[in-house]
């Protein structure tokens, strides 16, 4: 079975990916590769990953998101994670995955304004 592709939308110099279905491992890894390539191709200054629709984030996906944030950071692009459900936040912390280095916002709207502030402060996009 082909791995599922998560659409990545571009608005200005920000990329937005909203994960709407449960990712299996291969599609999650595909998403990481697609997103980093798209950051490179579009020279995006920020990426928002919205997880509103996810009701389970296990250690594999949690680690992958932390990896994406670190990798995008190396490329000079900030990542903001938005929309974590209460149950997901609780299980991540209980699992021991607190994602201390990942920026988060309550929802997509707050994530967008956070991203605007971040990219304005750093006019060249590098942080």
């Amino acid at each position, binding site marked *: 079975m082909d791995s599922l592709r998560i659409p990545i939308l571009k608005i200005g110099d920000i990329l937005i990916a909203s994960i709407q279905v449960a990712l*299996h*491992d*291969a599609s999650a890894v595909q998403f990481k590769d697609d997103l980093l390539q798209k950051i490179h191709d579009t020279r995006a200054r920020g990426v928002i990953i919205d997880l509103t629709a996810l*009701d*389970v984030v296990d*250690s594999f996906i949690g680690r992958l998101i932390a990896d994406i944030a670190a990798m995008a950071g190396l490329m000079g692009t900030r990542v903001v994670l938005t929309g974590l459900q*209460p149950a997901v936040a*609780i299980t991540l912390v209980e699992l*021991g*995955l607190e994602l201390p280095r990942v920026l988060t916002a309550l929802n997509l709207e707050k994530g967008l304004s956070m991203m605007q502030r971040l990219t304005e402060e750093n006019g060249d996009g590098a942080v």
Partner: protein
Amino acid sequence: MAQSKTAVIRSDLDIVIARTMARDAAKALGFGAIDQARIATAVSELARNIFLYAGTGTVTVKEVEKNTRKGIEIVCEDQGPGITNIDLVMQDGYSTSRGMGMGLPGAKRLMDDFSIRSQEGVGTTITCRKWRT
């Protein structure tokens, strides 16, 4: 939920199928949203361990009752290489694979009861339960 349900783990797709089965069972048994997420996440960790270390195995969920309490029991079985040192794999951060080493200790924290039976060369059975509050 009178009968038990079993998911066979052969690929990473089956991890999602197993945890969806566990979540649906937990919901049917009256668990709240947060416990449903805990149970589904624990099953995801345990099913991934089967896939990574044994290749194939099964995840079975069923209703259990102790005194007047109702709960869910999850049994993960494989005929993989077995675990040589159970104390070691239950330590946070210990991993022999690509994981972060939080699969087993993480799953234990998310559940109420947790036990491992394992024999080298024979396989591993992990039984865990969550009780309804």
